[in-house]
C-alpha cells in the first residue's frame, strides 16, 4: 500500500489541482473572459473590414492566447507556496518533476483547453473559413501545452518575488515566440492553399521537447526558489 507509481503520482496531482480549480471556478472564467475580450478588442481597434480581420485572425487569437496564459501562470505555484502545500509536494517520495508535470497538465486543462474550445467561436467572429479554423484549433491544441510548460519554468523562477507577474511575462514571452510563429504560419499556409503539416509537426516536435525537459527544469527552478 506504500507503493505509489510515477503515473499514480501524476494522476493524484492532476486530480488534486482539478478539484481545487473546480472549487474556484471564477479564476478559470476570468482567464477565459480576458481571452474573449482581448480578441474582441481588435476589430474595434483596426476596423471591421472582413478582409483585414480574416487576415489578422490567427495572429490575434494566438497573441491573445499567449497573453491569457501569462495571466494565469502566476497562480501555478504561488497558491501552493503561500499555504505551505508546496513544501509538502516537494517531500513526496516521487521525483519533483512528476509533481510539476502534473501541476502543469492540470493548469493547461483549466486555462489552456478552455481557450482552445472557445477559439472557434471567436474565429467565426473574424470570418475565418472552416478549414483554416480547423488548423488554428489543431495548432492551439499542440501549442498551448508548450506555453504552459515554458510558463511553468518562468513561474517557478519568479515564485514569491515582488512584481512576479510582470517579470514572469518578461521572461517567458520571448521564449514563446517560436510557438507563435509556427502556430500562425500553419493557418497562413492553409489559407494560401499549402500544406500545414510541416508547421504542425514542428509544433509537435516542440511539444515533445518541452514535455521531456520543461518539467525537470521547472523542478530545478522550484528547488532554487524554495531555498
Amino acid at each position, binding site marked *: 500500500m506504500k507503493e505509489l507509481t510515477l503515473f499514480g503520482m501524476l494522476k493524484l496531482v492532476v486530480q488534486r489541482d482539478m478539484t481545487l480549480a473546480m472549487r474556484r471556478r471564477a479564476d478559470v472564467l476570468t482567464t477565459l473572459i480576458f481571452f474573449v475580450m482581448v480578441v474582441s478588442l481588435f476589430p474595434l481597434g483596426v476596423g471591421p473590414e472582413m478582409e483585414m480581420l480574416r487576415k489578422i485572425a490567427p495572429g490575434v487569437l494566438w497573441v491573445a492566447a499567449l497573453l491569457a496564459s501569462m495571466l494565469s501562470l502566476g497562480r501555478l505555484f504561488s497558491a501552493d507556496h503561500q499555504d505551505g502545500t508546496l513544501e509538502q509536494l516537494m517531500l513526496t517520495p516521487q521525483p519533483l518533476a512528476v509533481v510539476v508535470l502534473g501541476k502543469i497538465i492540470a493548469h493547461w486543462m483549466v486555462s489552456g483547453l478552455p481557450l482552445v474550445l472557445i477559439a472557434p467561436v471567436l474565429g467565426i467572429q473574424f470570418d475565418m473559413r472552416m478549414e483554416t479554423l480547423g488548423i488554428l484549433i489543431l495548432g492551439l491544441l499542440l501549442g498551448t501545452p508548450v506555453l504552459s510548460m515554458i510558463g511553468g519554468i518562468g513561474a517557478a523562477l519568479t515564485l514569491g518575488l515582488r*512584481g512576479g507577474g510582470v517579470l514572469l511575462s518578461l521572461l517567458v514571452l*520571448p*521564449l514563446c515566440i*517560436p510557438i507563435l510563429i*509556427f502556430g500562425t*504560419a500553419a493557418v497562413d499556409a492553409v489559407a494560401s492553399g499549402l500544406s500545414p503539416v510541416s508547421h504542425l509537426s514542428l509544433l509537435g516536435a516542440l511539444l515533445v521537447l518541452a514535455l521531456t525537459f520543461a518539467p525537470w527544469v521547472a523542478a530545478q*527552478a522550484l528547488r532554487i526558489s524554495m531555498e
Partner: protein
Amino acid sequence: MAINWFKYSAPSTFYALAGKLIPWFAISAAMMFAVGLYIGFFVAPVDYQQGEFYRIIFIHVPASILSMFLYLVMAGYAALGLIFNTRLSAMMATAIAPTGALFAFISLWTGALWGKPMWGAWWVWDARLTSELILLFLYLGYMALHSSIDDPRRADRASALLAIVGSVNVPIIYFSVKWWNTLHQGSTIKFSGTTMHVAMQQAMFIMLAACWLYAIAVVLARVRSVILERERQTKWVAELPEVRG
C-alpha cells in the same frame, strides 16, 4: 606546464589578476579601434552598390557577433556556476549581461541606420534584426530576474537556469524567425559582392577584435565591483589598499 586554475578561480586572486589585466585590454582595445576605424574609413574602397553606407558593417557586424557570443559565454559561466557551485563563474555571468545587452542594442541601432538608406525604412522585419531584438529581450529578462531577487545566491542560481534555458532556445528562435521571414518574403541584409575587398575584411576583423578586447576589459572591471560587493565581509577585502584608502 600545469596552471593551477583553481587558484585563479578564488575571488581574491582573480580580483588582483583582473586589476592587472584591465589596462592591457583597455589600451589594446583603444588601439584596435583606432586602426580598425582608419582602415574602415580611409583604406577600404567604396562599395559600388551601397556607396558609403556599407561602412556601418564595421560596427554592426562585430556588435551582432559579440552580442550573440556574449550570451553563450554568459550561459556557459552560469552553467558552470550552477553545476560546480563556483562563486566566481556566477559573478562573471552577472557581469557579462549588461555588456551583452548593450552590444545587442548597438547592433539594433546600427542595423536600423543601415536599413534606412537601403530600404527606406528604419526598421524592417529582417530575420537577423528580429532575432537580435529577441536576444535583447532575453538579456533584459535575465537582468530583470537577477535584480529582482534579493538573496544573491538564489539570484545567481535562478538567473543561471534562465540563461541556460534561453541559450537552448536561441537556435530554435533563430530558426523559427528565419522560417517566418522566408514565408513573408521579407528583406534580408545581404552584402552586394560575393567577395569582400581585403581591406574590408581586415577592417571587420580588427573591429571585431577591438570589440572583444573592450568587452573583456569592461566585464573584468564590472566583475571586480561584484566581487567586492559579495566579499565585503571577508578579511582580504578589508586589507585592500583601495578599501583602506
